């Protein structure tokens, strides 16, 4: 079975590639997977890669905001990469670009 989240890197930068649709149902499991890895590796930068995400609703934005506040506690900043135009529309609408330890890379 395909993993929901594939992790790469470790010490300084950790990349989490999300590989499924993100809604309230799937976000719960992804949150657990990412948080576990985040606390295990304590990276300086957490990159969330959305290039394999075919669907996302505002639960995905909740997932991002939640990870940002957690990352902040361990001095880690968050980067979002691989956002399609579709997903960017949601990112802009929800205004997550304003979060201080978050960078959206287009």
């Amino acid at each position: 079975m395909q993993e929901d989240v594939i992790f790469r890197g470790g010490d300084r930068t950790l990349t989490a590639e999300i590989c499924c649709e993100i809604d309230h149902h799937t976000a719960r499991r992804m949150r657990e997977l990412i948080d576990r890895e985040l606390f295990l590796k304590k990276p300086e930068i957490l990159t969330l890669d959305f290039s394999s995400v075919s669907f996302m609703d505002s639960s995905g934005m909740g997932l991002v905001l939640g990870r940002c506040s957690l990352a902040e506690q361990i001095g880690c900043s968050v980067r979002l990469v691989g956002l399609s135009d579709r997903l960017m529309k949601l990112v802009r609408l929800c205004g997550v670009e304003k979060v201080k330890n978050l960078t959206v890379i287009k």
Partner: protein
Amino acid sequence: MKKIINEMKLRLPARSVNEAVARSVISSFCAELAPSVEELGDLRCAVSEAVTNCIVHAYRGRGDDERCYIYISARLYDTREITVEISDNGCGIENVELARAPSFTTGESGERCGMGFLVMESFTDSLCVKSRVGKGTSVLMRKKLKP
């Protein structure tokens, strides 16, 4: 006078796995009007938000044995319009205006961004929310597809 060309009704238990079911059904249902990828994406997202609201808010704290259902009814019109109504018999919303305000949420702290209604509103052409405390909530979304 616009004419209904197709209609459907669907009742789903308020289980989070049904968020994906609901948006798949709506995608298939409106395929007849051949919406663009963008229009379909908007609609799928709006439906997902409404169904999530039923599960996360309307039926919050209700046990599995209770009958918590989400009712979805959709219509296609010959004017290339789609309407989707999503309703529940949940707790209702005390102040709809406040609930619709961006960033307002009573959900799990830090994990819900309070953008559900804003997404529904932005991704459709109109959104009408009716709610009665203790009775339930209904959202009616309308989207007009490009010719």
